[in-house]
């Protein structure tokens, strides 16, 4: 029984991290209506970047985070302006295929530079338990992941609701023409949205790097997670994304309890497929279209 409780708790904590992985994708899909198939790979790129910077600065993850976020934002901005914006009004397939191409390129570039071995970001934050009770314990890194994720999501919510920047983004996702008619440069808003997505992805990337091992092909797995989070939680709905992450985390952990750890991922995938079949608009829909 305690094992199950522990797993449920871990599922929730992990869910926060998963939510943050899905955040970027939720933003992009919610606002631009496209799925960025390179989302997972971009995140892993930021993980590798953090690793390199951290090693350069003797394990200082804060500097790593800072530099990585800035670089990823620039990359996101460039990708949006020069790649995606060029095809965004040409139908749903071109952006999808371009991000697919980007995904291929990124994975292979990482493979070339770093090789296929699993890596990890060395950190002073450990997997030691920080809270221990007779019924369950909470590991330090899991807790930090969860807290950071909640903070980021709350911050983003605030920006979206109360700032002109956030309003411009919401307006653009609602009606492009009407937004332009009040002076909003919608193409640039798309670029900013992508930059925002990249910022959250790089934070998630750093946390992933500290918590798990990763390799160039890990991007695919997290792409599916991100998609899962977004689908389960409903598009463009920030709180829904959090809940989506938690549900995904829970289905993984609980699945592993009943079917064994090897089937952890598998359970997550099956839950996603089931939801896609019966309620593709997400469990907490109310968002666009």
């Amino acid at each position, binding site marked *: 029984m305690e094992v199950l409780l522990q797993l449920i708790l871990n599922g929730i904590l992990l869910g926060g991290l998963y939510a943050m992985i899905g955040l970027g994708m939720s933003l992009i899909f919610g606002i631009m209506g496209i799925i960025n198939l390179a989302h997972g790979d971009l995140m892993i790129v930021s993980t590798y970047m953090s690793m390199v910077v951290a090693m350069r600065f003797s394990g200082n993850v804060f500097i790593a985070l800072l530099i990585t976020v800035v670089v990823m934002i620039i990359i996101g901005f460039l990708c949006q302006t020069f790649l995606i914006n060029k095809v965004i009004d040409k139908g749903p397939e071109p952006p999808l295929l371009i991000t697919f191409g980007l995904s291929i390129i990124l994975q292979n570039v990482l493979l070339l530079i770093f090789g296929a071995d699993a890596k990890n970001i060395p950190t002073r934050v450990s997997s030691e338990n920080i809270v221990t009770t007779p019924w369950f314990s909470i590991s330090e890194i899991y807790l930090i992941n969860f807290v950071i994720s909640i903070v980021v999501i709350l911050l983003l919510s605030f920006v979206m609701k109360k700032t*002109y920047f956030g*309003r411009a983004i919401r307006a653009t996702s*609602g009606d492009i023409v*009407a*937004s*332009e008619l*009040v002076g*909003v440069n919608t193409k640039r808003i798309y670029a900013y949205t992508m930059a925002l997505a990249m910022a959250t992805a790089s934070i998630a990337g750093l946390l992933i790097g500290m918590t798990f091992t990763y390799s160039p092909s890990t991007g695919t797995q997290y792409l599916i997670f991100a998609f899962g989070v977004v689908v389960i939680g409903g598009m463009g709905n920030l709180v829904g994304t959090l809940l989506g992450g938690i549900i995904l985390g829970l289905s993984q952990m609980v699945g592993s309890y009943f079917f064994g750890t090897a089937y952890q991922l598998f359970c997550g995938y099956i839950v996603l497929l089931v939801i896609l079949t019966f309620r593709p608009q997400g469990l907490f829909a109310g968002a666009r279209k």
Partner: protein
Amino acid sequence: MLNQENKELLTVENLDVHYGDLQALYNVSLQISPGSIVSIIGSNGAGKSTLLGTITGINKPTRGKITFKSQDIGSVPTHTIVAKGITMSPEGSRVFEKMSVEENLFMGAYLPNARRKRQELLKRVYGLFPVLKEKSGQLATYLSGGQRQMLAIGRALMVDPEVILCDEVSMGLAPVIVKDIYHKIREINREGMTFVLVEQDVKRSLKYSDYSYVMVKGKIVMEGPSSELPEDEVKDAFFGIHKYA
């Protein structure tokens, strides 16, 4: 053709617009004087919305020139044209459904010069359309047709422009409401705002405007000071009675 001293606020010269292979506007020319209300009358498919869309940069002209305050705006993106001082209350209102009435109005004042005067502009809009103040916290999606139209015009006012283009503000609305809206437009015009009104109702267009253009199938077939245009002749032209087609 060349105005050395172009006193007109907005001029459209010899405009052709195509949708792919389909031509929508044929050699359209207009002049909008500052502080006037100009109406463009025509039935469905006459090209009125295309014209407004081209002025605001939503459509690209194939040929011709659009000048605003002596600047060529033919190939300029919409948000830049808005920044220069032209905006539109689009066909169907197109309010931001998931935002509240007040947020919609806030968005109207997105650009810096409007944002600075936001409170003042907001007060003015609420003064003109009290129902918007009543419903300020409500989501735009729950408004009635007439209220949406007022919101669209209010939002356009928040931009603090020099010219507001109104695309069929009366569509689907009860005559009482339409009358109210038109009175408000007149009031705003008296304070200096230039309006271009696109309409299908001949009588109303002639009544509330200073100058009128009649469009049939993408061409201007008739124009003149509204008071001087005989209503039945305009109606004939409107229905494409063949001497004007």
